[in-house]
């Protein structure tokens, strides 16, 4: 009231002399000081969160029960299931720390987005089966009041894995395992292939397995945003920062066999804010490592792998960055709408993208020609030399394709056996892993999230038994080798 009269009194001045040339605001607000004072008063009034010391709204909270390092699809999935499976609602405070809030280098959004059940390890098949059920009913799982339903654009076109003479027997075995778990896969001979897919050149193909249901591809960005939205509505806090340090306390204990081990427990996580030297120590009870391709670095921060090699102390987390290229090309004479996700025996793969004769595809390089993972630059010669020839040989129509664009993304590659690492670390007691899926993390994310949440809340896996995916297999040497890795 007083301010208004003051304004009126003072504004009459310049108005009398002619219209002022300053935009908006009153003459009192010329330096912006008035709005600052108003903001200060508003923050002090009850109802606002006023901190008399300094503004900490950009920092994560000082303590959180669970800190999830990494905000990709795996991290968000763990957060979602933790909040969904906790018995009393609102019991656990979860903080998700993600240093790249545009997800520009995250594996999730750079992924090709396929989902299949055609794995050789039965647990992988079970994981994918649950995940497809999750994706099919995504609007029941991830519904948020007043928000539009999600459309993940699932194309149920199936996967077509081709095998040469050498791999035919393995493929038959794999299909038997998949059928046992409940996947609907059929085996096709070369004639059946030619009948069903006339555009395919079956030279060198002895057997093919075609997933008839629950396989295809979807939009990973939509899944990520849906999870993010839902998880925020459930009360999970997000923080944009990087984990730089773990403060832990250790105990020297003796195992049953008399061996001395050093059990550590992380009690504080230092989260550094982007482009600033500020960091916030977050007191936590549980840390979940879902940092994707950078999980190895995060594990090293926690002291995993610091010890004489060959001991449990010295076993590192064998997850590293591997760069993979994806190319998008246009081919007007290419295969039609029923094209599945085709995987050639040579490792080259492609799938249809959209309805305009565009196709996505690529190939995993061999160990010798691994590109340098320092940046996400695309090597177009790789396409010319390694991807195009097998493609053109398999699908003759692809001899006349035109590459539209390409991108590169990281695999969180598990150098041990290319399968995920799930569950707690035996020595760093309160660090749980949900990483290392080497290219099939996106499709198994909902199921893995549930498994990790069960492990945290109950202490053992309840629905899908992933005990063969625990960290201890790196020490004992039991590989769970997945053969169908693209």
């Amino acid at each position, binding site marked *: 009231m007083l301010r208004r009269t003051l304004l009126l009194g003072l504004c009459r001045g310049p108005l009398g002399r002619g219209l002022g040339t300053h935009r908006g605001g009153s003459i009192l607000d010329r330096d912006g000081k008035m709005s600052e004072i108003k903001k200060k008063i508003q923050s002090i009034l009850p109802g606002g969160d006023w*901190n*008399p010391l300094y503004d*900490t709204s950009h920092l994560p*909270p*000082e*303590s959180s*029960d669970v800190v999830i390092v990494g905000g990709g699809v795996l991290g968000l999935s763990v957060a979602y299931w933790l909040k969904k499976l*906790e*018995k*009393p609602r*609102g*019991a*656990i*405070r979860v903080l998700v720390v993600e240093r790249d809030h545009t997800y520009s280098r995250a594996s999730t959004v750079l992924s090709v987005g396929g989902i299949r059940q055609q794995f050789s390890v039965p647990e992988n098949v079970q994981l994918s089966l649950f995940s497809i059920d999750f994706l099919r009913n995504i609007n029941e799982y991830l519904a948020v009041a007043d928000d539009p339903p999600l459309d993940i654009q699932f194309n149920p076109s199936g996967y077509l894995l081709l095998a040469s003479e050498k791999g035919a027997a393995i493929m038959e075995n794999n299909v038997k395992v998949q059928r046992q778990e409940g996947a609907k896969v059929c085996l096709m001979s070369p004639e059946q292939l030619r009948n069903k897919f006339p555009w395919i050149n079956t030279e060198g193909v002895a057997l093919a397995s075609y997933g008839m249901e629950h396989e295809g591809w979807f939009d990973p960005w939509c899944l990520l945003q849906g999870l993010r939205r839902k998880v925020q509505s459930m009360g999970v806090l997000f923080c944009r920062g990087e984990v730089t340090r773990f403060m832990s306390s250790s*105990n020297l*204990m003796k195992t049953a066999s008399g061996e001395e081990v050093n*059990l*550590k*427990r992380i*009690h*504080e996580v230092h989260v550094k804010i982007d482009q600033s030297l500020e960091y916030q120590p977050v*007191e*936590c*009870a*549980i840390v979940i490592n879902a940092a994707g391709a950078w999980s190895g670095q995060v594990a090293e921060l926690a002291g995993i792998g610091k010890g004489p090699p060959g001991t449990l102390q010295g076993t590192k987390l064998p997850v590293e960055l591997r760069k993979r290229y994806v190319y998008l090309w246009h081919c007007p004479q290419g295969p039609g709408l029923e094209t599945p996700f085709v995987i050639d025996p040579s490792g080259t793969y492609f799938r249809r993208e959209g309805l305009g004769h565009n196709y996505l595809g690529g190939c995993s390089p061999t160990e010798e020609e691994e590109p340098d993972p320092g940046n996400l630059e695309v090597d177009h010669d790789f396409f010319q030399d390694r991807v195009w020839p097998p493609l053109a040989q398999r699908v003759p129509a692809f001899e006349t394709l035109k590459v539209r664009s390409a991108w590169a993304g990281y695999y969180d590659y598990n150098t041990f056996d290319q399968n995920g690492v799930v569950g*707690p670390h035996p020595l760093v*007691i*309160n660090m*749980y892993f949900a990483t290392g899926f080497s290219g099939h993390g996106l499709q198994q994310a909902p199921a893995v999230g549930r498994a990790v949440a069960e*492990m*945290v*809340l109950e*202490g053992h896996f309840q629905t899908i038994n992933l005990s063969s995916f625990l960290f201890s297999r790196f020490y004992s040497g039991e590989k769970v080798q997945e053969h169908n890795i693209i």
Partner: protein
Amino acid sequence: MLKIIIPTAMLMPMTWLSKPNMIWINSTTYSLLISLISLPYLNQLGDNSLNLSLLFFSDSLSAPLLVLTTWLLPLMLMASQSHLSKETLARKKLYITMLIILQLLLIMTFTATELIMFYILFEATLIPTLIIITRWGNQTERLNAGLYFLFYTLMGSLPLLVALLYIQNTTGTLNFLIIQYWAKPISATWSNIFLWLACMMAFMVKMPLYGLHLWLPKAHVEAPIAGSMVLAAVLLKLGGYGMMRITILLNPMTNQMAYPFMMLSLWGMVMTSSICLRQTDLKSLIAYSSVSHMALVIVAVLIQTPWSYMGATALMIAHGLTSSMLFCLANSNYERVHSRTMILARGLQTILPLMAAWWLLASLANLALPPTINLIGELFVVMASFSWSNMTIVLMGTNIIITALYTLYMLTTTQRGKYTHHIKNINPSFTRENALMALHLLPLLLLSLNPKIVLG
């Protein structure tokens, strides 16, 4: 009385002048000695009070509370050792000094003769508590908690000052011993209604009464362990003690005026117990259970029968010891797991069996198991309120059941079941912690052998 006050005051220079590795030992042992000095005050003779000086006195109501206060200081010091270990030396000494100042003020409050002196010290105890909560608390919310705590109590007690000054002017004295003979019955005029409200509101907020209890969960959860202990054990009892003293002046209007507060307390008792069933934060659960127990004391004091007063005093002492012990147990959990959520630290019985024994005993005391004085207090209050009105037995009975429910819920969630993977390497119980729990429990069990001492 000086023989308690001077040593307590001298604890401060002793802390500041001790060698760094002796501060905890010195302060704990000497405060234990002081508590032993205060024990003879429990030997009260008959109805009269022990008049010690012009300023201080103690009678069978204030003596148990005095002993509780002095007993609690060494326990608070023992409990704070771990979380202060990382602070600088000056900060540690400052913390201990705050506790000692609080102790001093509380001792003087419980033994004050003049009501104005009682009031001044009552307000003065807010300051060290506020400093402890806001400076050494755990989360950023502690500033909010401190604000709530300070202003709720201040707003409630400002009218009390006015009322006390008015009574001083009309009656000529506020010396407690004289006024109990001089008080005239007051009639139910409007100004007397406000007088009654002014006198009682401060203590209602402090107790806390159900509608004004908002500051308690916040303050308890954010306070460090010593702050929680002293809040739960002693500061809440200040409200009860003050109410008992001041109702002498307010007869017979209390009969009519008490109705709304009785209703609030009875209903609030059941409500806060039910809230406890839904709590996920351990300290928050214990804080709400404090509100529930204190509501019983409010009911007892407002009824004003001899049996209800006996029940109220017994309940205050019992609840002080039990609540403080539960907070210590919750803190021992928190120091290991760094989280107060109950479901994240389960199955502790397999890993820390002795601590599980303390948990069991504390929980059994909390749910008023015979023959502890918790039961005696509750039973006397229930009986007195039944004779006041038959219908209250329904609410009281519901409260007792729900108390048992949430206490057992707390016990089974933290102790029983399979332990979670991430608590496998927690430190075993320290001797200090075991000693702390034993020292809490020992008076409680000994009092069940001779409850006459605390039945004012």
